[in-house]
């Protein structure tokens, strides 16, 4: 199997797991959950196809998938209202849970590497993460106020 086929299988599989979470955690019915996930997968696959076009493949796939999703959701795009209505049924948190489950299952290999590091990296990493989040949020707060957006 080539890389793109593998990616398609992985997308469908993780999409199904998202549908399961959507039904269990947010009391959405099976039909709406599966339909919503299917539409999300199709958009993801379109983005993946676009990212393979020669010339366009200089930018990362995540960029093209974002762009395709944004264009499809524009009010002037035909059928955008339908897409938004269908995909709204899939809760954001239901999408995140399987992703972080996969992330969790891959952590074991980092735990061994982590043991070899000095404890000093823990406070430093927490400061790095706090810094990037907090400074961006504080600047955004001031500029949003200045622009009159909030």
């Amino acid at each position, binding site marked *: 199997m080539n890389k793109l086929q593998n990616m398609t299988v992985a997308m469908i599989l*993780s999409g199904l797991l998202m549908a399961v979470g959507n039904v269990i955690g947010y009391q959405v019915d099976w039909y709406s959950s599966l339909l919503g996930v299917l539409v999300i997968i199709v958009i*993801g696959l379109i983005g993946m196809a676009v990212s393979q076009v020669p010339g366009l493949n200089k930018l990362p796939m995540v960029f093209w998938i974002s762009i395709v999703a944004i264009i499809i959701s524009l009010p002037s795009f035909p059928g955008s209202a339908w897409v938004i209505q269908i995909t709204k049924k899939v809760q954001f948190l239901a999408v995140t849970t*399987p992703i972080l489950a996969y992330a969790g299952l891959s952590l074991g290999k*980092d735990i061994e590497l982590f043991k070899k590091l*000095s404890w000093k990296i823990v406070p*430093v*990493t927490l400061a*790095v*993460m706090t810094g990037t989040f907090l*400074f961006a949020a504080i600047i955004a707060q001031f500029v949003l106020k200045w622009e009159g957006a909030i």
Partner: protein
Amino acid sequence: MDILRNWKIHLLVLIIVVMSENLGVIKYGLIILLPLLHALVLGGIISFPKFKILSTKQMEVAAGILPIAMMLLIVKIGLDIGPNLSLLFHSKGALLLQEIGHFFGTVILGLPIAVFLRMGRESIGATYSVAREPNIAIIAEKFGLDSPEGRGVMATYICGTLVGAVWLSILTGVVAKLGILHPYALAMGSGVGSGSMMAASVGSIIAAYPDMEQQIRAYAGAANLMSTILGIYVSLFFSLPLATKLYNFLSKFQSDKETVKEKV
């Protein structure tokens, strides 16, 4: 990558998802624990090397599926941007300028602590960025991964993988509950350039402000997109030189910095 043959991974994810969603959102005072956090921790426990449930190869398969599953989250977030485009356009200045915070916030807060802890030149690699894959590539090319800078960026990468999402989820929840910063500003802050960290952070903002859910995701998605596009260039041409300069300045105040540099 034999995705289907590694059915054990998918079965475990299914079990984790069912358990995590059943637990649901848990709130203790200022702290919000989301299903995604339960899933991360449960997965982490299962993959613990001592338990021998998963082989290193199976963990690598899980790590390989992660970015692909992440694409579906990117779609979900992207679909919130279109309907909110005029709102985002109205705050284009904020979207652009907050990136300064993303790119320099790591150095401003992280570097002084790293220097204080006497990490030597590792401080530069460890704090010049959030140490995701593109940032590692930059350091590998400029210094090599055997250099102090290389060891620093790898250390933050490993530690960030383990604690980054958990920390950002809890931190964001607390900051959101304090109510000082607007949820839109927090949403932009959450676009740190790592998918799982953004998911964890955005989840906590939405849990605190459920009625602004769609706008929050639109702002986070737009900020994350900007980090993706600008990230490599800014960290190469601005963050790394800044971290190096600031390190040279701060380490002047440490009399025995040369000996420390050798030891770390």
